[in-house]
C-alpha cells in the first residue's frame, strides 16, 4: 500500500471519528445509538429505531445530515398516508400545460420515517421498496435516489393500538434495529443545560454540528468499508452465529442468509469506526445484537416468560465458539 494511499485512509478514518463526535455535540447521552447509526451509514443500510417519544430521534437524523452535508426529510407516518405521499406523483402544471413530477420526501439523503408502524402495509411497502431498490418509480418512470441514502424509521414501543406492526419480511430489510433509551442523569442534566440556554421555543438546534464529511466522502467510506479484508474465519464466525439462531431452542424463526450478510456488512463498518483495516471477531460480536434482534421470532412461551431477543442473542453469543485461527 502506497504512503499516499495510507495517509488518505488515515485522514478518512479520522474524519469518521469526528463524525461521531460532531453528532454527539447535538445528541447528548446516546453514544451507542450514534455509533450504531454511523455503522448503518457506513454499511449503506437502514436503521429501525425503537424508543419512546422525546428521546432525540429527529435531532439525531438532523445532526447526521448536518455533519455530512446531506439533505434531510421527515415523514410522519399516519393511518391515512398514501404511497404517493412518500414517493411523489405526477401533477398537471396549468401554466406549462403539461404534467410534471412532484418528487416526494423520499428524495433526500437522510429520511426520518417517524412512527412507521402507524401507516398501513401499502405505504410501508412503498418505503421499504425504495429502501431496497434505492430508486422510485412514478407513473412508470424510474428516478434514482442520490446516494448516500439512509432511512431512519422509528417505532414507539408503547401505544400499540391502531398500529400496523411491520411483518418479519419487512423488518429484514433494516440493517440494524437500535433501541434508544433514556439518557443517564448526568447526561440529561448536561443536555437540559445546553439545549435550553438562550433558546426560544423548542426548535431543534443543530448549529453546534459542523460539516465534517461530504456525501461523496460517505460514498468513498462505504466503498472502503466494503473492501475491508475479512478472514475466512470471520465469515465462518458470522455464519455460525446466524445459523445458531435457527436451531436455538425457543426461537421460532431464526435469521435467514440476509442476517449473515448484514452481520458481515455491519462488522466491516464497525471495524472502520474502530480505525482498523481488517475485521476481527469483536466487530462481529459487537454488532450482532442490533443486526439480529429484529430478525428473530421468539416462541410464545419464551415471550410469556419475559425473554427478549437480546437475551436469546446473548446466550447464543456466549455459546458460539469464537474463531479458531
Amino acid at each position, binding site marked *: 500500500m502506497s504512503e499516499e494511499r495510507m495517509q488518505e485512509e488515515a485522514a478518512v478514518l479520522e474524519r469518521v471519528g469526528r463524525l461521531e463526535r460532531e453528532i454527539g455535540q447535538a445528541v447528548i447521552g446516546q453514544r451507542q445509538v450514534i455509533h450504531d447509526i454511523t455503522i448503518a451509514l457506513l454499511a449503506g443500510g437502514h436503521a429501525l429505531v425503537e424508543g419512546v417519544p422525546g428521546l432525540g430521534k429527529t435531532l439525531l437524523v438532523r445532526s447526521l445530515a448536518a455533519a455530512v452535508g446531506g439533505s434531510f426529510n421527515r415523514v410522519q407516518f399516519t393511518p391515512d398516508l398514501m404511497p404517493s405521499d412518500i414517493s411523489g406523483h405526477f401533477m398537471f402544471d396549468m401554466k406549462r400545460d403539461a404534467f410534471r413530477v412532484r418528487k416526494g420526501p423520499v428524495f433526500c439523503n437522510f429520511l426520518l420515517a417517524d412512527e412507521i408502524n402507524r401507516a398501513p402495509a401499502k405505504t410501508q411497502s412503498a418505503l421499504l421498496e425504495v429502501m431496497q431498490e434505492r430508486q422510485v418509480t412514478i407513473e412508470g418512470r424510474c428516478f434514482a435516489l442520490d446516494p448516500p441514502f439512509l432511512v431512519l424509521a422509528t417505532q414507539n414501543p408503547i401505544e400499540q393500538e391502531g398500529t400496523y406492526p411491520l411483518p418479519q419480511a419487512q423488518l429484514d430489510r433494516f440493517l440494524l434495529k437500535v433501541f434508544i433509551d433514556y439518557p443517564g442523569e448526568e447526561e440529561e442534566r448536561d443536555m437540559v443545560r445546553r439545549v435550553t440556554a438562550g433558546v426560544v421555543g423548542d426548535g431543534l438546534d443543530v448549529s453546534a454540528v459542523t460539516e465534517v464529511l461530504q456525501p461523496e466522502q460517505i460514498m468513498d467510506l462505504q466503498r472502503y468499508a466494503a473492501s475491508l479484508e475479512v478472514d475466512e474465519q470471520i465469515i465462518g464466525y458470522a455464519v455460525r452465529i446466524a445459523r445458531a439462531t435457527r*436451531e*436455538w431452542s425457543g426461537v421460532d424463526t431464526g435469521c435467514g442468509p440476509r442476517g449473515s450478510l448484514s452481520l458481515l456488512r455491519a462488522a466491516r463498518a464497525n471495524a472502520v469506526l474502530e480505525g482498523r*483495516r481488517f475485521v476481527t471477531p469483536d466487530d462481529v460480536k459487537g454488532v450482532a445484537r442490533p443486526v439480529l434482534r429484529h430478525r428473530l421470532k421468539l416462541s410464545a412461551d419464551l415471550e410469556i416468560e419475559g425473554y427478549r431477543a437480546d437475551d436469546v442473542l446473548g446466550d447464543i453469543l*456466549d455459546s458460539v465458539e469464537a474463531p479458531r*485461527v
Partner: protein
Amino acid sequence: MELDRLQIALRRRTPWEAIDLGFVIARRWFGPLWRLWFVGALPVGLALFLLGGPESWWVGLGLWWCKPLYEPPLLFWMSRAVFADQTPLREVLRQWPRLVAPQLLANLTWRRFSPVRSFSMPVALLEGLSGRARRERLRLLGRNQHAATWLTFVGMHLETVLELGFFVGVYAMIPEELRWVDLDELFSAPGRIGEWLQLIGGLLCMSVIAPFYVAAGFALYLHRRGELEGWDIEIRFRRTARRLAGGEGRRAGAVLALLAAAGLSLGTLAPSPALADTADTVADAGQARLLIREVLEDDAFGRREEVGYWRYTGERERSDGEEDAHWLWRLIKGVLEYIGGFFKGYAAIGKLLMWALAVLLITYAAYRILSNRGWFGQGPGRGQRGRGRGRGRPAQLFGLELAPESLPDDPAAEARRLAQAGDARGALSLLYRAALSQLMHHNRVEIPDSATEGECLRLVEGRRGGAETAYFRELTGQWLRLAYAHRLPERERLLGLCERWREVFGHVPG
C-alpha cells in the same frame, strides 16, 4: 294410577329424551313449581338467617344443604299434575310435613350428596319404599342408568354459572360512576355486599334450576317405570279396547282377555297397581297363557325362524408376550372398572375423567417434548438457554492449545528462537498462547470459549495489574493483525514482546 289420564305421551325413549321430557314438564308448569319451591325455601332461609345471624355464608350454605326439604313438594305436585290432577298449592303446603318428614335425616345427610337424588326421590316419596325394599327397587330401576348422574352434574354447573352470571350482571347494571368498589373486591368491601348478593343470587338460581332438576328426575323415573312395566303398551291396549268396545262387541271379550293376559305377563316383571286393576277381569292365568299362545300363532305376529352359525367355543390360544403387552391396558381398565364400581353413579364420570386426564397427560408430554426437542439434539446452541456454559477453563481458545503441558518450559525463549528463524507467526502464536495459559491457570482469569480476543483483553484489564494489561494489549493487537489481517509484526517488535514476556509473566508457564 290411571294411565288413561296421563298428560304426557309415553313411548320408548332414551334417557336423554326422558330428561328433555322432564324439561318440557318443568317449562309447562314452571310457575306453580317455582312458587312451591320458593314457599318451601323462604321460611327455611329466614330461619337460617335468624339462627346464623350476620354470617351470610352460613345462610347460603344452609339453604343449599336443605334442598331435600323443598324439593319433595314439587315432585308430589308434578306426580299428580301428569295425571291431570293439579293439586292446589294450599293443599300441597298442608301436606308439606307428610311429604318431607319421611327419611328426612337420611335425605339431609348421606343421601344429600347422592348424584341420582332426583331419580331416587320418587321411589321414596311416591312408592313409599324404605330400607331394603327401597335399595332393591333402586337397583332395579337404576340398572345401566347414568343419565341421572349427568343430570345432577350438569345442573350443579348450570346453577353455578347462573349464580356467577347474576352476580356479574347485577354489578354491571350499576352505573360506572356509582361503583364504589371493584368486582373482585366486592366480597371484602364494607357491608359485605358481595356475600349478600351471592345469597340472593344463590336463592334465585336454585329456585330456577330446581323445577327442571326435579322434573327431569321424575321423567327419568317415569321413563324407567314405563320401560320396565310396559305402560305404553298398556295404554295402547286400553285405547284399542275402548275403541272396540264401542261397535264391535263380539270381539270385545277376546281383546279384554288379551289385555288381561298382557297385564299378567308384564306384571311378572314388576308390580304395578295399574296392572293389578286389570288383572281383576281375569279368572284363570292358565287360560290366559293358552289364549296368548293362540293369538301369537297368528300370522300378524310374524314368523319364527331359526338361523344357524358357527362359533368357536374353545379356549383361545395366547402368545406368551401378549399378556405382558397388554398389562398396562388391563391395569387402566381395572382401575376404571374399580372406580366405576365404587360409586355406581359416578362410573361414567370417573371413566370420562380418567380418559380426559390420560389425554391431557399425553398432550402435555407431547407438548413438552416438542417444545424442548433441542434437549435431545447436539450441536451449538441446542437447548442451551442458560448462561455460564463454557465458564470453565477451555483447553483450547481460538484454536490455540492452552494446556500448560502443551507449552514449552520457556515460551519466551522458544518464541525468540522461532522469531529469529523467521517464523513470526509461530513465535507470536506461542507468546499469545502462553500468555492466555498463564492468565487462566495461574492468575485465575476465567475465559469462556466463546470469548473473542477483545473480550479476553477486557477480562485481563479488569482483573490484572497495569504491566500485564499493557503487555497483553500490545500482544493482542499484534496477534489480531497477524491472525485476521495477515500482517506480520516487525521483527524488533516481536523480539521485544519475547523479552517482555519474561518480565511480565516469568519464564515458567506450568
